Every structure is written in structure tokens, then in C-alpha cells.
């Protein structure tokens, strides 16, 4: 008992290092990757543990930072029926974990032009009528590695509330685990993406200052400056970069103005 606790202290349960090297004093644990048993260091993420075990990722690995949605993984602990879901790059292995990655799930993605479909919920209904096959089983929400209320945003869309759906689905990383679990064969994450696009294009008010800035760019206001920069040598550019004016950290809002004001 004591021995185990000591070991836990020297090897915290976090993923360390960027290569699959067994850290000194690390304990290995058994995990079952696609049904086959491997002994892997207990501190690794699922992705690194798989590489440690000899797997090479050609697909199913992207940013390795928990944001690209390429490495969704399903796992189950020995002796328990409950399925768990996570990203291979973020989830630390545990002893007697049975796992498989589902890097892609063939979910229907509708063809549309955002400028033509208009901003009404009926446009989304017409492109994805399958949302009306939802039975509210909530497996999608249970499967989401980003804790998105998937049933909540599908319900919101059925109720015609695009704004609610866009906001509820904001953290979605398009991994597709929701669709893999759906009884109604709904591609939730594609529907949510459409909702956010419609929300951005038709519902969210446009930023006025962005309009002004875009107009300035289009009128050629910055062309001279860009031409100048383009013609500079690498050394000159580096010098300019190092000498650039910077707003001091923690400056009060509105308390600082650069000396160069030509392009403000």
C-alpha cells in the first residue's frame, strides 16, 4: 500500500515529454488497444501510449492539443459496461482500459451556399430533415468529449432557435462521436456548424468598426505601407520588428498611444 502511494508521488498522472520514452521510475500498466494487450507507462496519454506500443498515426492525429477533433476515442474499463469517450491526445491511460479510436465517422454533410439559403430555421430543417428523427436518447451528449449539450442544441434547432444552438455548440471540435452514437443517424456536428454559420451570417449584428476597416483596406489606404514592407530586406524587416512600438503590459485602456499615427 505504502509503496504504491510513494510511487504515485514520483510519477504524477500527467502526460510528460513529447516522445515515448519510459520516464525514470515510471510504472507500466496494461491497456487493451483494439483488443490486444500492451504494457504502457501510466503517465502517457492514449495517443502517446499507442505510439509507445508501436502504432504510427497517418490519420487520426492532428493538433495533439485537444482542439482539432481528429483523435476521438471510445474506451471502457474492464468489468464495467459503461462506455467513456475522450480525445486520445488529452486522455491519460488507466490500467485495464479497453480502447479504440474512431477518427472518422461517415456522417452526411449537406451541400449549400451560405449566401443563398437565408437565415431562417426552415433552411436548416430542409438541409437536415434527419434532425426530426431524434428520440432524445441523449447518447450524443454523453459521448461528447467537449461537454457540449448536443441534445440541447438539436432540440433548439427543432424549436427554430438558431442562436441558442450556435451558442450551445460553440465548443464543438467536430470529432463526430455524437454522430457515431446517434440512433436517428443524425450528423449533429455538421448541423451545428451550419447553425453557427447561419448565426454568424444572418443573425449576429455585423461589427461596425470592421466594416470601416474593410472599406479602408479596399480603398487602398494601406497599399503604400504594404508595398514598402514587401520591398524591405530580411534584415531591415527584423530590425523594424525588434524596434516596433509595443503597448506596455497592463496599460490602462486608452492610456497609451503609439508615436506613429499615420495608419490609425
Amino acid at each position, binding site marked *: 500500500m505504502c509503496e504504491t502511494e510513494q510511487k504515485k508521488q514520483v510519477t504524477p498522472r500527467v502526460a510528460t515529454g513529447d516522445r515515448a520514452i519510459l520516464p525514470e521510475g515510471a510504472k507500466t500498466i496494461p491497456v487493451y488497444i483494439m483488443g490486444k494487450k500492451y504494457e504502457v507507462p501510466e503517465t502517457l496519454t492514449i495517443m502517446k501510449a499507442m505510439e509507445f506500443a508501436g502504432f504510427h498515426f497517418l490519420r487520426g492525429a492532428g493538433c495533439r492539443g485537444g482542439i482539432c477533433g481528429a483523435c476521438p476515442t471510445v474506451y471502457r474499463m474492464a468489468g464495467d459496461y459503461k462506455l467513456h469517450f475522450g480525445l486520445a491526445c488529452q486522455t491519460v491511460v488507466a490500467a485495464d482500459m479497453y480502447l479504440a479510436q474512431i477518427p472518422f465517422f461517415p456522417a452526411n454533410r449537406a451541400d449549400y451556399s451560405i449566401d443563398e439559403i437565408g437565415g431562417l430555421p426552415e433552411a436548416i430543417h430542409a438541409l437536415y430533415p434527419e434532425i426530426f428523427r431524434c428520440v432524445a*436518447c441523449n447518447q450524443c*451528449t454523453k459521448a461528447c468529449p467537449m461537454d457540449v449539450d448536443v441534445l440541447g442544441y438539436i432540440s433548439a434547432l427543432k*424549436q427554430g432557435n438558431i442562436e441558442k444552438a450556435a451558442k450551445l455548440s460553440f465548443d464543438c471540435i467536430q470529432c463526430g462521436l455524437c454522430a457515431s452514437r446517434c440512433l436517428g443517424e443524425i450528423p449533429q456536428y455538421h448541423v451545428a456548424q451550419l447553425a453557427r454559420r447561419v448565426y454568424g451570417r444572418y443573425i449576429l449584428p455585423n461589427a461596425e468598426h470592421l466594416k470601416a476597416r474593410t472599406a479602408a483596406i479596399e480603398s487602398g489606404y494601406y497599399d503604400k505601407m504594404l508595398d514598402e514592407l514587401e520591398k524591405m530586406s530580411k534584415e531591415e524587416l527584423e530590425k523594424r520588428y525588434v524596434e516596433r512600438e509595443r503597448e506596455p503590459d497592463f496599460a490602462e485602456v486608452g492610456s497609451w498611444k503609439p508615436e506613429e499615427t499615420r495608419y490609425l
Partner: protein
Amino acid sequence: MKISYYPGCTLKTKAKNLDIAAVASLEALGVEVEEIERWNCCGAVHSLTADDLIHQVAPVRNLIRAKEMGADKLVTLCSMCYNTLARANEMMKNDPVKRDTINRFMDEEIDYNGDIEVVHYLSFLKEEIGWEKLKSQVKVPLTDLKIGSYYGCTLQRPTEVGIEPLGHFELMNDMFTSLGAEVVEFSAAAKCCGSYQVLSSLPGENNAAAVVINTAAKEGVEALATSCPLCEYNLGKQQQQMQDKGKIEQNVPTYYFTQLLAVALGLDSQLCHFELNDKKSLALLEDKNYLVAA
């Protein structure tokens, strides 16, 4: 008085004329309406096979939401939502095996055993407001309106969840009498409008709906009132096409009963969103001088 209210998906878009008029009317009658949080689609139809429990999960989840809010009653309006919620509730109350399976499956939710009472808006009006009080609140009596209370299927069948026994239409009839309208009983009041068969039939080719409209017209009904967005779609929105195809002889404007309730209570006619009804519906009410603008 405060009530928990389940609106339903269609009432938030195409049938907001049903929803907004209903909520505004209750508020005018001194009732505070609280929409339950995080509700989902009720499922629209009760699943009829003995072993199919997954399709009962959607209505049960809404009943759990009501319970979480501390409600003992859930008032609802759309006939299909009412039917689906009430039948699932009966199942959870009376079938311990199915109840147990569903509770086990929904392991992320609190257990539910059928302890919420699902109440239709019309029953609530009668029980909690009463026809006498309603009568006293009428600002614009619907004098001369020959109204037919159309219940369709899901307010009456199956009998265990019917808001009234078969062949009785007193709830809506009494409401309209209180509002000053002339109630016309007609023999198609509980005939099916064709329901979801609209998905498999061509526009305007719905014979079941044509039977309802023709019967109503023949038996002296001037306008129909319903509580179901699918009935309104089949009878109201499709009426022009049915007329174009010669399926119906005469136009019968179709309303949600809550729109006419709001009109009689003298509420701003904008609240009733008549623009979502058939054009002729608004014209009839204007002819009769019922409408009040804010």
C-alpha cells in the same frame, strides 16, 4: 397562480400564433406561465409497439424537467404534445417493468415514476379559471361567430388520456359559449385530419381533411377551432390547394382556439399572429369587427 408550461417545437416557429396567444391570454387572466427549462421534442406520436421503449424516452425526459423544477402539474397545449406526454406519463405510472427499464437507461437523470400530472390547456381553463370568471373577463364577445370545436384525434383518443369522454366536446364548446360565440356541433369534430400522412400524400390531395371541412360547412360551421398545429396545417394551410383541386366546396377559416380566446379577451390582435393563418381567416374576423389593435 403560477404554472409550468410545455410549449412544443412547432409552437416556437410555425404555430407561434397558438403559443403566444395562449400565454398572453393566461397572463390576462392572472396566471403566471413558466416555460420548463431545457425541454426537448415530445416525440409527437406515442410509440405503439410493446417492446419499443426508446421512443418513450423523449416525453419522459420532459416530465423529468418539470419535476426538477418542482412542478406537480405540467400544462401543455398542442394536441400531439399533450397526447404523447400524457400517454408516456400513464406508462411510467402504471407499468413498473417499463418504468424501471427507462429509468435505468436514463442514468444521467433523476428517476421518474409518473408523479407529474399532464394537463391540457382547456382542462386548466375550466378547472382553475372557470367559465364564469372567463365570461366576466370577455371584452369583445364573439357574437354571431358560428364556431365548430374541432378536437381531431389526440385530444380524445385513446380514452385513457382523452380530455373528455368520446363524443363530448364540452370543454372547447363551453369556452366558446363563455366567449359569446355560437357553438355549432358537427359530426366530424373528432374525425382525423390525415395527420402525418401529409408526408406521403400530394399537396391538397388529403381526403381526410376534405371530409372534415366539407362536413363542417354542410352542418353550418362558419369557422373551425383547433389546438393542434398539424390539424391546422392540414385543414387551414392546405385549404386553398384543396379548393383549387375541387376537394372542398366552401372555405372554412381555421383558427387556434387560443387566438379566438385572446381576441375575445380584447388583447392586441398582433399577439395572435394572424399572418400565419390562411388569409381568409383574418378577413372573417375583420368583417365581424372583433379585432383590437394596441
